[in-house]
């Protein structure tokens, strides 16, 4: 681990704790916030994500300008003079390559599906041209997200299969460069001498792996670690109370809750689904599991991005029309009475072991529904197996406990994933098998139009429609959290996509 003992503020080394061993330093194989958080320090994204992930051409963007020539043709102009840590210069070819590498089946990239609508990516001179099959306003965000980290084509060719492994540290364009990668203990960064932008106070950044949450907490409290983002949702109550450290939380834009297969047995009956919705005391669940750092969700998608796009008054007005299911056992019973199962029934809920928040949420559900006679048997299974069930849409979807972060700030991000009729099929994640032509139309319309306000408004309409049918029961928004040593903090509050941003620039150390 980290250097032990207390350290003075002028320490040129930043000790940051991570919770999971980084499987690779090549983003293709490391899709996750912790990875992106590190990548963002060593590598430019094509575009610089704003607080809400909106694409900008700021100092940390690899391109100086971009525009959608047509709804299916995007052109990006690469900045001159950006140097990799090996001294070579970033070219349009590199940028194109960085996108194509994920599209290449041989790579087996985890971000393949970001490009399912991409016809081609080409480079000419200092411009990169992306052609889409059909208009997709979601695309604009992709260059500002993890799929858009820029790599050196030559470097990749040179390192081949070893690229991203300890023996093949990629070269990057960011303020820092990889110097050590020990998958089971730590990752070390040092200054990239070719970096031209602002210099941050730390010469060296050490990401120490501390898998055990307790140990992490103690490490921060004891000052062995300067800070960490790795705070398990279920432990937040613990960390909030913990002394000699500073805890902060923010809205991660993610949601936690359940999906209900509208085509499966008792759940076909909308009254049953509503009964379940009523039976859950969202407020106290949020209090208990997140110490109210998360926000109670009455519907999907989370409002975070929509509020960013529309005036408050308009949103609130729209929300009035959205049906909600405030906690009430009586209402729940009443709903159930209307259904074909007035006495209730039994069902099983698959729980991915390893996901503690899911487990807790599942148990809460168990308790809630038991009050109205629906008894839920929890069925632990390895995470992947559970995920396979969702992908296969079999054996039985029934209830599923879900937790998702935002893939993009587009208002249709989750609706597209969860509500689309054609996605109620094997290989997709519409685990409620929700089908609604009207909703599909709104989604398509939103994606087609380049005006996000349209999407935002449609999202509110969709929420209204969907909430009647209750295919999903969101409980709370997943709080993002950080802990740093006393006196430290972040200038501006972190946004949902902090990990794709130069988060270091907000960190203030005394």
């Amino acid at each position, binding site marked *: 681990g980290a250097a032990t003992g207390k350290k003075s503020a002028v320490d040129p080394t930043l000790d940051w704790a991570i919770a999971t061993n980084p499987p690779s330093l090549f983003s293709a194989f490391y899709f996750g916030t912790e990875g992106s958080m590190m990548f963002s320090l060593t590598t430019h994204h094509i575009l610089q994500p704003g607080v809400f992930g909106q694409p900008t051409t700021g100092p940390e963007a690899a391109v100086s300008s971009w525009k959608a020539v047509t709804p299916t043709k995007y052109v990006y102009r690469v900045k001159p003079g950006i140097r990799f840590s090996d001294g070579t210069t970033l070219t349009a070819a590199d940028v194109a390559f960085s996108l194509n590498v994920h599209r290449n089946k041989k790579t087996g990239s985890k971000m393949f599906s970001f490009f399912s609508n991409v016809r081609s990516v080409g480079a000419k001179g200092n411009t990169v041209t992306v052609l889409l099959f059909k208009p997709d306003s979601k695309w604009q965000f992709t260059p500002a997200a993890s799929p858009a980290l820029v790599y050196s084509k030559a470097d990749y060719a040179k390192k081949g299969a070893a690229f991203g492994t300890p023996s093949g540290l990629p070269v990057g364009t960011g303020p820092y460069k990889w110097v050590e990668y*020990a998958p089971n203990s730590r990752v070390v960064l040092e200054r990239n001498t070719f970096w031209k932008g602002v210099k941050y106070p730390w010469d060296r950044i050490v990401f120490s792996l501390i898998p055990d949450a307790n140990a992490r907490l103690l490490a921060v409290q004891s000052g062995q670690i300067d800070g960490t983002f790795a705070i398990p949702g279920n432990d937040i109550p613990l960390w909030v109370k913990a002394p000699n450290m500073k805890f902060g939380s923010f809205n991660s834009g993610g949601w936690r809750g359940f999906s209900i297969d509208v085509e499966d047995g008792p759940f076909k009956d909308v009254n049953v689904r509503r009964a379940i919705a009523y039976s859950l005391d969202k407020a106290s669940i949020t209090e208990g599991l997140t110490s109210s750092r998360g926000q109670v969700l009455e519907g999907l998608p989370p409002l975070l991005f929509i509020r960013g796009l529309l005036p408050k008054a308009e949103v609130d007005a729209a929300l009035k029309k959205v049906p909600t299911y405030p906690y009430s056992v009586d209402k729940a019973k009443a709903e159930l009475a209307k259904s074909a199962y007035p006495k209730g029934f039994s069902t099983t809920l698959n729980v991915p072991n390893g996901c503690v928040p899911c487990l807790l949420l599942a148990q809460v559900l168990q308790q809630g529904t038991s009050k109205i006679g629906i008894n839920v048997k929890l069925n632990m299974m390895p995470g992947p197996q559970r995920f396979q069930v969702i992908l296969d849409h079999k054996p039985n979807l029934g209830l599923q406990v879900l937790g998702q972060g935002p893939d993009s700030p587009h208002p249709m991000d989750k609706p597209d994933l969860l509500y689309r009729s054609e996605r109620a099929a094997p290989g997709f994640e519409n685990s409620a098998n929700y089908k609604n032509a009207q909703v599909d139309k709104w989604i398509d319309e939103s994606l087609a139009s380049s005006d996000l306000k349209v999407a935002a408004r449609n999202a509110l309409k969709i929420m209204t429609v969907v909430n009647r049918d209750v295919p999903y029961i969101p409980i709370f928004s997943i709080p993002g959290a950080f802990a740093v040593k006393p006196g430290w903090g972040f200038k501006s509050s972190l946004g949902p996509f902090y990990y794709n941003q130069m988060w270091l620039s907000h960190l203030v150390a005394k």
Partner: protein
Amino acid sequence: MLPESPPQEATPAEGAAERKRRRWLARYVARRLLILIPLVFLVSVAAFTLTHAAPGGPIATLLENAPTSPEQIEAIKEKYKLGDPLPVQYWDWISGVAQGDFGRSILTNETVLNEITSRLWVTLSLNIAGIALAILVGVPLGVLAALRRGRFLDRALVTISVFFMSTPVFALGLFALYLFGFRAGLFPLFGPGEGLVDRIHHLALPAIVLGLAGMGFTMRLTRAAMLEQFDMDYVAFARARGLGSFHVTSRYAFRNALIPVTTAAGLLFTGLLTGSVLVETVFGLPGLGTLLVSAVTGGDFTMVQGLLLFIAAWIILVNIAVDVLYVFIDPRVEFDKARG
């Protein structure tokens, strides 16, 4: 522990006997080593079928928490040859193994072999330290208890051993972590450490926990074996001939007591191996144990298969080593073995 080497003026006949014994030993070891092959093969089949019998599959693992699409699933099937029929897959895997290629971890994309070798030292040092503790402390204490048979010290030691024997390692670990790591602050609470000294510091507590668990066993076993010995005629006869109590205890009782204790060594090894899974989990150490657990719970099948093979080989080799050691300790073994 070796039986006395034949004295200088050994007659040719004796020399021949010794040579014969050595030849026999060599053949014996060779025979035992041959068993390795079919056993490991069995294990490989078992491991493969187990992992592939499990619902779900690598694909899910590969996709987990990344947005998905049918094309992507196709891509992965292609990359990991998941389309092929099982026998073919098995053949690909096992023939790879034969050439030392255990495949790549599905979770981390690192080669299984690298993962194992990079974490081996943790588990290995834990086990070696644990075994050392279990033997170097447990055996003498066992002897001591036997010598003080029925007295307070004996009772105390026996209690301790029963306690350690029936205490789950993870519970022991948690106690230790809380008391010595957190309360007393004597030991670091996480991680394997950097550099030799630091590493020793980091691994000390888990190793001790593991060792204590083993110690209860060795101690009890030694005590019982020693007590058995003290009832033996030859021990009394040795005393009757005026041999000092130390001599009698060490050369008569102890050396004979070693025989059952040695047989237990194999069990001790496998036991501690299992124990280290729990200890590593408690102390959050990047060893084979945690690797196995994460592979199992994370559905990292290539890793599980690789680990199972590795562990099987480990256990079999240890058992063989014990058998051989046994031959050196007990001259009668050769004859028994000759009888079957």
